[in-house]
């Protein structure tokens, strides 16, 4: 390897910021549309031994990641808000002890409205959490029931007030649209209720069903009917309009925020920067490598107790060309698009010359827009983005 490339590699590794993800694979009850790794059968001792194992993994991985500066920490799940204050504090303490964390780091925890209490919340903040992502999904109890959520619309309002009272000034609300039999009116009512609460950030996701989930099965067996594509498209564009009118700026296919309140953590994913994933079922990306911590909790805990790294599966090992493709496919999800110069500096490849034909095809189909060094999806392109992305696969 030429010296300059090697140098660049070391530079990247050491100095570029990274994101840290912690997976908490426990739920009170699994949602009917969810196919993430999470467990319903657990008790407090189980939670505690998992937290202990997590601190173990944090320690064990510090040789590889200790030099990196983390600009974001994100507790995802599952339902991370099942952890008590002490547990969250223990985890964050180990992170501060073994890694470098940026002083202004965004520290998010995903929370289920039915699992938060005043005490817990205060504790989280004290431990350093400064952003809450609330899994609202819907403001209507019948829809929440259909989704298999354990909270009610009332819980959402209560929890939101609590968050504000605790002084949390960075809140995201997750919403889902395109539920079986959902009408446009119903969805817009949901959206308006969300806007009325004035959160800093709103994620509005189109329901995406895997065949393996209970709801996926019901749809497959025609017990439930999803709205047709035409209606979904209209819902999407109405969502964009309504949110933008209310000063929520779209910055990704499904994400909207008040100025300055974009989610830093997710931007790491979309810019194809490095991230460390801790806990069972978590994925890490380092350079061109993506690895998965195997999704088996007993083995995970046992291995870490023996001071060994938990077993991993190699998901991807990408050369420069594949990394470029990865960065384009992820980067185009963002409204600002991708920057030719930036990608050239990162991978030593010019995306415009490498994908000239593909870019032309997409521009002709009005899916992509070129603006100097920037390349981005058109409004039409958002809901047809896979038609763009597949062309960039190496």
């Amino acid at each position, binding site marked *: 390897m030429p010296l300059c490339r090697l140098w660049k590699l070391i530079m990247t590794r050491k100095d570029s910021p990274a*994101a840290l993800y912690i997976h908490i694979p426990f739920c009170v009850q699994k949602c009917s549309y969810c196919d993430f790794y999470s467990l319903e059968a657990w008790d407090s001792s189980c939670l505690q031994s998992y937290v202990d194992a997590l601190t173990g993994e944090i320690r064990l991985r510090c040789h590889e990641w200790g030099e990196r500066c983390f600009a974001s920490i994100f507790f995802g799940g599952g339902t991370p808000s099942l952890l008590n204050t002490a547990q969250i504090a223990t985890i964050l303490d180990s992170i501060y002890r073994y890694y470098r964390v940026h002083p202004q780091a965004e520290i998010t925890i995903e929370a289920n409205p039915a699992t938060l209490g005043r005490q817990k919340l205060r504790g989280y903040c004290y431990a350093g959490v400064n952003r809450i992502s609330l899994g609202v999904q819907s403001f209507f109890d019948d829809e929440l029931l259909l989704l298999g959520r354990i909270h009610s619309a009332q819980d959402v309002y209560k929890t939101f007030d609590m968050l504000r009272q605790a002084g949390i000034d960075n809140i995201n609300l997750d919403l889902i649209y395109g539920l079986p039999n959902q009408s446009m009116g119903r969805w817009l009512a949901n959206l308006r209720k969300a806007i009325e609460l004035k959160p800093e950030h709103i994620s509005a996701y189109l329901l995406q069903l895997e065949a393996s989930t209970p709801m996926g099965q019901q749809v497959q067996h025609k017990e439930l009917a999803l709205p047709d594509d035409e209606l979904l498209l209209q819902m999407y564009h109405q969502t964009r309009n309504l949110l933008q009118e209310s000063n929520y700026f779209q910055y990704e296919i499904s994400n909207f925020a008040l100025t300055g309140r974009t989610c830093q953590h997710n931007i790491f994913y979309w810019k194809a920067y490095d991230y460390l994933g801790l806990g069972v079922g978590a994925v890490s990306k380092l350079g061109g490598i993506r690895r998965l911590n195997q999704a088996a909790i007993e083995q995970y805990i046992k291995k870490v107790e023996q001071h060994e790294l938990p077993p991993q599966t190699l998901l991807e090992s990408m050369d420069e060309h594949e990394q470029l493709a990865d960065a384009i496919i992820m980067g185009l999800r963002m409204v600002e698009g991708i920057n030719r110069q930036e990608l050239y500096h990162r991978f030593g490849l010019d995306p415009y010359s490498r994908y000239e034909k593909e870019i032309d095809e997409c521009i002709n189909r009005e899916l992509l827009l070129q603006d100097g060094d920037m390349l981005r999806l058109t409004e039409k392109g958002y809901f047809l983005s896979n038609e763009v992305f597949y062309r960039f696969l190496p």
Partner: protein
Amino acid sequence: MKENIRNFSIIAHIDHGKSTLADRLMQFTGALTEREMREQYLDKMDLEREKGITIKLQPVRLHYQARDGQSYVLNLIDTPGHVDFSYEVSRSLAACEGALLVVDASQGIEAQTLANVYMAMDLDLEIIGVVNKIDLPGADLEGVQEEMENVLGLDRDEIIPISAKMGTGIEEVLEAIVNRIPAPKGDEEAELQAMIFDSYFDPYKGAISYIRVESGTLRNGDIIQMMSTGNEFEVIELGVLTPMVKQVESLQAGEVGYVAASIKNVADTRVGDTITHANRPAAHPVAGYREVKPVVFCGLYPLENSDFEQLREALERLKLNDASLYYEPESSDALGFGFRCGFLGLLHMEIIRERLEREYDLALLATAPSVVYKIKQTDGTEIMVRNPSHWPEIQRIESVMEPYVKASIMVPSDYIGAVMEFCQEKRGEFQTMEYLSAHRVLIIYKLPLAEILFDFFDGLKSRTRGYASLDYEMLGYEVSHLVKLDIMINGEPVDALSTIIHKENAYRHARMLAEKLRQIIPRQMYEVSIQAAIGNQVIARENVKALRKDVLAKCYGGDISRKKKLLEKQKEGKKRMKQIGKIEIPRDAFMSVMEIDHD
């Protein structure tokens, strides 16, 4: 010497155990040692093994020490096992004095077997009946023996029960070959007459012919002449297969072997042709030669237009090995440059297409197969149309003729009604019916070849729980009420989707075809309109709505790899599409126009 030669073939239906029996004969006579023994040695090509059928022939010379103490040379001449290749079968049989008729003890005689046995009887071959698979639980030895006696007039006491798989009865078969099949006749001193029953292309030696010497003697260095063309060549190598190649100095009347003569093209070694000496030619060739004509045509187009030259080279090379393959360049407005190719039947077509894709790594699009139509035009001229897009305009057509066949269907008598109903649907005309035994009948129908070619056999089998067997022979052309159905995509005719159909079925067919295309053509960026038309008249229409949604709403660190796999699949799917204008059409769509089920 000649008295100790026996030339024979094995006639059997697919799966009735021909190859296994051939293996056993080779093993018993020591032609193959255990180490050389590959299962089903005769089926050489990968495709043959996969499809379980024999395509190319291979004669094998066996040495057998008979019970009478004498040593015999047994030439086993293999025959292909599919109706597409019935001419080749007839030439292989013509090279023999006898044939083993192998019938599965649980299945009985099948139509195609019967056709081949009749062919063998016409050629005066001695038929040795063999009932195979007697070890299987469903075996009905006596029933099958009775059927063979009733249908073919074989003496049931002379029918040999065997199990090729277990290796029982093999010696009895060998003894029967020695004792019952006559030794070849023919004068070694007479003018040379050697019939070609197969040929293949060897990259080092050129075209190699498998021959049966009828009379005279062929020696190394002889100047030979092909009697159908008059072309002359010098023999550079003679040999036999044991089954390993073994060179010999000469081949005499009665013998079977191969000849190499620096022949550059298999077209010069036509199956059925007679080889004679240039300086002392025979008075006449061996009877029965005819030029093989393809009956099914389809367009083969590379999915990538830039692969056209590669496709041409691949066809050229395949043609070296397969004289019955026909091709000529053609172009289609929709598909660009490709070739119109002719085949002996659908299986032949499928084999060639698969070989092109596998051996030459080409991604191909095949248009719907078509028979050759004869059209009398209003100006009095007559044209042959083998590509629906060359169909003349309606006002220029005086009359249309299509090829008909005589189809023989054998089936248990319970299914007579089902078979007749099915043939009627396929525009068949009932001819005769004959009881072969108390429970089996032979039904003869006259049918348009076009109906037989496409999924006829599958339909027949599904209506008879797989019991029906089928054989057919050409009858000739007859006037028929046919029209061309055009398909227009977004108003533009797509020539490669045109088909010829019977006028009576036109509306129903058009509606079903439009509907089928609507299902096959995926949603695109733009709405796609599909119209089916006869002449200027649109008789069916469908729309494929524009694609509205193709998005992954959520994509975060944990599932990027998985989401990329989904995109990967999408990309693979696009590779199987043909771009026509702005529209992407899956390549299966072109074949699907033939796969309309009228039920």
